[in-house]
């Protein structure tokens, strides 16, 4: 277990005149849940596609589970769920799944047994109804996503790569996905997922890598990343009338007190200005007459770190892009 799940070294990829990924290096430890974070268009999907040899890098090397990523058979140990999901619409569910498993080198007999287990586990086969014999396009969107997810895991991969897995999931399926990620980790598998939703990443990931504009901004274990950004953040939650809230807002505009504020209406995450005293801030907020529900010194959230390091401009620039 000495080799990391993924080792990317100095990888660069151009598309025509634009640079999608520049000199990217990162290491994903085995058995970790790893978040690849970044705004849209940061190069997350390009990086993932290079790992899977769907596109080849212009330069740099990629290793999967200690072997060069082009080595025959190594990709059979990887399960991949692309951002744009899809299946053969006119095929029966069981046949699609068998096809996907066979593509990864699983024998028909083993595949069929696992398919039955999975269909039952995700209640696609119930005593009332067997969806396994239905055609894919007869299934609801949620059920299709389940089938796709089964297809990703049927060959029991050591490494699972999920590209924006939470996009388009309803809360129930999103919860099911989180549960599965935790199960996979318990079973000793490595899970990499890309997302621009920092809340999910913060709760699920052991380690993260934030990339923007094709370059790595920071990476490391979540705890370490947060530690290195200091405990200079304040979580503030207030109740009260609009006037008092406006007065709180005015205080937070003061750059001598707060260098950055994430205003979420009833909740503020405040990065204290250098030299600012949190006690002083608390006193001024109380003086506005607003009722303070919560005032806590915290480590910054990934969201805050993300905003600080990538910058609001980076996020907005990425919003119009894709992938």
């Amino acid at each position, binding site marked *: 277990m000495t080799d990391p799940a993924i080792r990317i070294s100095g990888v660069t990829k151009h598309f025509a005149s634009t640079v999608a990924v520049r000199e990217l290096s990162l290491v994903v430890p085995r058995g970790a849940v790893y978040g690849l974070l970044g705004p849209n268009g940061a190069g997350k999907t390009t990086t993932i*596609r290079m790992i899977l040899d769907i596109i080849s890098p212009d330069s740099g090397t990629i290793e999967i589970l200690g072997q060069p990523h082009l080595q025959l058979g190594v990709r059979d140990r990887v399960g991949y769920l692309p951002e744009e999901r*899809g299946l053969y619409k006119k095929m029966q569910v069981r046949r699609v799944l068998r096809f996907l498993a066979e593509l990864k080198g699983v024998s028909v007999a083993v595949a069929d047994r696992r398919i039955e287990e999975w269909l039952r586990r995700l209640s696609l086969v119930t005593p009332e109804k067997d969806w396994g014999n239905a055609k894919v396009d007869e299934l609801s969107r949620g059920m299709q996503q389940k089938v796709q997810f089964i297809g990703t895991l049927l060959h029991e991969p050591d490494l699972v790569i999920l590209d924006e897995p939470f996009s388009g999931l309803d809360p129930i399926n999103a919860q099911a996905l989180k549960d599965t990620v935790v199960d996979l980790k318990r079973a000793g598998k490595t899970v990499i997922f890309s997302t621009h939703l920092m809340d999910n990443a913060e709760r699920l990931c052991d380690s993260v890598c934030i990339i923007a504009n094709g370059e790595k901004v920071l990476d490391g274990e979540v705890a370490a990343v947060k530690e290195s950004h200091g405990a200079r953040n304040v979580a503030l939650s207030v109740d009260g009338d609009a006037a008092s809230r406006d007065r709180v807002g005015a205080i937070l505009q003061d750059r001598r007190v707060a260098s950055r504020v994430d205003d979420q209406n009833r909740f503020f995450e405040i990065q204290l200005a250098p030299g600012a005293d949190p006690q002083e801030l608390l006193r001024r907020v109380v003086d506005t007459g607003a009722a303070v529900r919560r005032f806590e010194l915290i480590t910054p959230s990934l969201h805050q770190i993300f905003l600080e390091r990538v910058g609001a401009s980076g996020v907005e620039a990425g919003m119009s892009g894709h992938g």
Partner: protein
Amino acid sequence: MGKTFVVFKREYLERVRSKWFIIATVLGPVFLGLITVVPIVLSSRTKSSDRISDLVIIDATDQGLGDRIAKTLASYTPNAPPPRLRVVKREQVAAEEEHATQQVIDREALGYLVLDSATAAGTVRYAGRNATSLIDVQVIERTVRQAILAQRLEAEGLNSARVSMLTSLTVNAKTQKITDRGREAASGMASFFFGYVIALVLYMMIAIYGQNIMRGVLEEKTNRVAEVVVSSVKPDALLTGKILGAGCVALTQVVAWATMTFIMYQIRAPLLKAFGVPSMLAGAVKIPAVSLIVGVALLLFFLLGFILYASLFGAVGAMVSSQEDVQQAATPVMMLLIASIIFMQPVLLNPSSTLASVVSWLPFTAPIMMPLRMSLIAIPWYEIVGSLISVALGCWLAIWLSARIYRVGLLMYGKKPDMKELARWIRMA
């Protein structure tokens, strides 16, 4: 290789299981049987109209020719009204024609025949409702010819009874084809028909299954299943598996058709009887013998031609992102394919012409044109081998180009690429 086989298996099984494949495979031979039998049924009914004598004869020859013709025609159809003979002067012909035309319009007669000074030299005029019926016109021509001959012979002193005995003769040509191996059992007509069917089946298979692959590739793209698949298998292996899968489906269909046709051929006598065809005509349905070498060459031309077009169609499918764009993008490939159909008629009529030689050497027409020529005339073996090499080279080029377009295009979404963009893809891959 293993993964190519997995793709191949999926392509083959999903297509063979489809309703359309089963329907087409079962109905194909029935259709083929019909187009074989119907002409025979029709030809067995190529008797002239049963009212052929119901006409007006305007005789301005002044030699009693009209009377001879009228008697002969009347004997053909005793149940129909006999011809109405008008013996007139030459200047009255125009007026009589007007009158006869009106009679035909009023359905009092089927048509009218004009005999005048030109008739002795072999020209008659016929106008009537059945003027487009080749058989009716032939009967009239033959009757007039016999009448003129009889008249000439009588003028030479033979009596009329002997004349009619001597001149009544029908000739039926039994044709036979000669090749390098000598005389063939089948008639020239049968090999003409056979060549036509071979070329048409080849064209249909390439067009239908080639476009099938194109739609399959586009479907994988629009369904977004392509990315899942190429994360497990290289695009080249995916395209190879798809082409081989669809090709084998086409072969399966042809073999099924050939088998059923053969069975139908074996039991043709009772079958034709069921259609009401006289049993002596059943012998007219013949399948020309195909030698093993010709069979192997046919198979090779089919496979190479199919791979050539299928890979091009596959590239077209990967180029575009929507159903709207695909037909337009496929036009250049379809044009190449349709060229074979355009040249089919001239090659059928003259299989040894220069044009025929040229189109059986061009890689994109040869897969259909060479088998067509081979079934019509004997082609030297070196020409067949040369043509096969030419197709194989074209095939290699098509695969090379298509694989490159396919690799890049499969994950590109958006507007259809122009030529410049396409050239960039080919360099990029």
